[in-house]
């Protein structure tokens, strides 16, 4: 039995919280920027192709301009040489934005515990979802996408993500 506005206008109207409405819209229209550097990027190609088909989750509009994207998928090893570029791209994305760290290298440096490899991208930029695997299977990428959707569902518009207290090693 509907009450309030719904009772008056019937089925032509639904009342909900603004946060819920926005999150609902966001969840299924993520625009990912794939920062693909290595093997994981090849697996991302599978995620985008017919068999796994990322468009089932509304995230097939892969943008190669950070300014048009709201989901950064870091797929692959990030070296110290690459780190300032990753940071620049993250900074160029407008809020709200989310980050998936895909694969062992992006999460922790993986088995490249040596002089070239950044030991986890979370020392440069904040990360929302970590995906294990070397490389992760396409299902794991899709699972991470669902995890981001869960985060979005719980977030309020009033939370200003930009004000998160993140300070990476390249932030001065």
């Amino acid at each position: 039995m509907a009450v309030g506005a719904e009772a008056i206008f019937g089925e032509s109207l639904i009342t909900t919280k603004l946060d819920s409405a926005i999150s609902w819209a966001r969840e299924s229209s993520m625009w990912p920027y794939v920062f693909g550097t290595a093997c994981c990027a090849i697996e991302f190609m599978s995620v985008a192709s017919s068999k796994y088909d990322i468009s089932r989750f509304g995230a097939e509009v892969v943008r190669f301009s950070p300014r048009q994207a709201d989901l950064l998928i870091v797929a692959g090893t990030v070296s110290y040489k690459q780190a300032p570029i990753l940071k620049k791209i993250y900074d160029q994305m407008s809020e709200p934005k989310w980050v998936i760290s895909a694969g062992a290298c992006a999460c922790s440096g993986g088995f490249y515990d040596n002089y070239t490899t950044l030991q986890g991208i979370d020392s440069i930029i904040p990360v929302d979802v970590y995906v294990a695997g070397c490389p992760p299977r396409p299902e794991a990428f899709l699972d991470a996408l669902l995890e981001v959707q869960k985060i979005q569902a719980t977030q309020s518009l009033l939370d200003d993500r930009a004000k998160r207290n993140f300070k990476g090693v390249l932030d001065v």
Partner: protein
Amino acid sequence: MSNTFKERFAASYTIDAYGAFILDKELILKALQTLFEEDNYTFLVDITAVDYLHVKTQPERFAVVYLLRDQNFQNLITIKTYIDSSLATQSVTPLFKSANWAEREIWDQYGIHFKNHPNLKRILNHKEFMGHPLRKDYPITQGQLCHQTDTLMDEMTPRLKSKGYTSQEDLMFLNLGPAHPASHGTIRTFVALDGENITCAVSEIGYLHRGFEKSCENHTYNQIIPYTDRLNYCSAILNNIAYAHAVEGILGVDLPERAKFIRVIIGELSRIIDHLVCLAAILVDMGALTNYWYLYNPREKVYDLLSKLTGARLTNSYMRIGGMSHDLYDGFEHDLNVCLKEIKQGISDTLKLIEHNRIFHDRTQNVGIISKEDAINRGLSGPNLRACGVPYDLRLTAPYYHYETFDFDIALGSVGDVYDRMMVRFEEIKQSTRIINQAMQRLPGGAICVQDHAISLPPKKEVYSNIEGLMNQFKLIYEGVKVPPCEYYRAIEGGNGELGFFIVSDGSGTPYKVKVRPPCFYAMAAYPRMIEGSMIADAVLTLGSLNIIAGELDR
């Protein structure tokens, strides 16, 4: 074939225990010139250095090693020179253009100076990096933060001057990469544009430098296999094979017949999926998206087969020193035939769309041309070199695993443009299918690993039921396969060309040094010159057609 080098330098060289010609560093340029001009050693395979800090028997701490092949690609010669405390030697860039980046890499990694090098600066490590990481006294985990990327103007300005540009006012500068949709990974090309035409281009690599060679010095021989997967990750198993093949060469073992045939079958399947991803990606770059699905779906099918066989889709680590981890599974042949059928279908669907397509022809023909002579001098190999019409394929020039007994053709181009490089790959997929079919017919039974307790792990039954087996397993895992002291180079035909490993062993279970000869590295070095004078859209296709894989390029 002439022997001018041996005659002229007979008094100057000595031959070491491993067959390398040792010369004084002052004679290197002259010796290589003689080899190049008189004896037709026109193909510089690779240059690398060795740091003998922990080897007391060597006369000097550093040595530089040159590997050359003759014009028929039949003979390989190793020239070695010791570098004294001045840490400087002559550059061979006047002879081989391919030496440019190779010498830069040695400077970057070992700190050896090359006199008269046109632009001796770091290549793999970033410009804020201090020290030389492949020196034995550089700690493996000592990373250094990078804050700023290189502007590359130090390379661009002289390049512009050499082309007659005195002012930069009319030019627009543009970075293609390192984060660019068409840069296929993390490659950066910095171009000066006059309108839409590229007047000058310089490339910067190293964004995916992951310290492969340093990591090798820290792991046992078998532990390195997973690292090799991640060199050219589009054909991981071919890298496994190339590496295992080199180590087996030092050990002097001959694989059981079944192992050889399995390596041929899985290796050729890897070559196919390597070419598939290259072609799929370049067609996307061209705007022909439908072909991506046609070519990528068969690759998915092969992933299913590889998952069943090895447990992993992409980074399979299937090979071991002396064989492979396990035999083919029941029903493999059926799955393989399904894959081959789908591949055939994918290829024919794609070719139907592009083969007689005017737009495709206009975009690819006479674009990104490299001449035969230039390609050899710049060290191109594999499909990229064959597209220029040079019949260099290690499966034929230096056959291994009975390749000489298979009936297959070498695909050759004639112009050396994007079109030829693509069509050579299409044809090679068909030829690889032929090889696989023949190999399946001839596949013998028997062991898949060398029957030697010092190399192959014992069967699990032995490990769990008797102490000898357990000890055997324990020793091999903890200490690694003991490889006799040697300096050795051996190569196979990888997805992108000559994929070789130069290994220095010291008798222990860990290599003293491993240097991979990555075919992409030399193709990428040639790339900036190939795109000068063309348009940006052509540069994108040229890069795609060279199939640059960052993992292999930067290691």
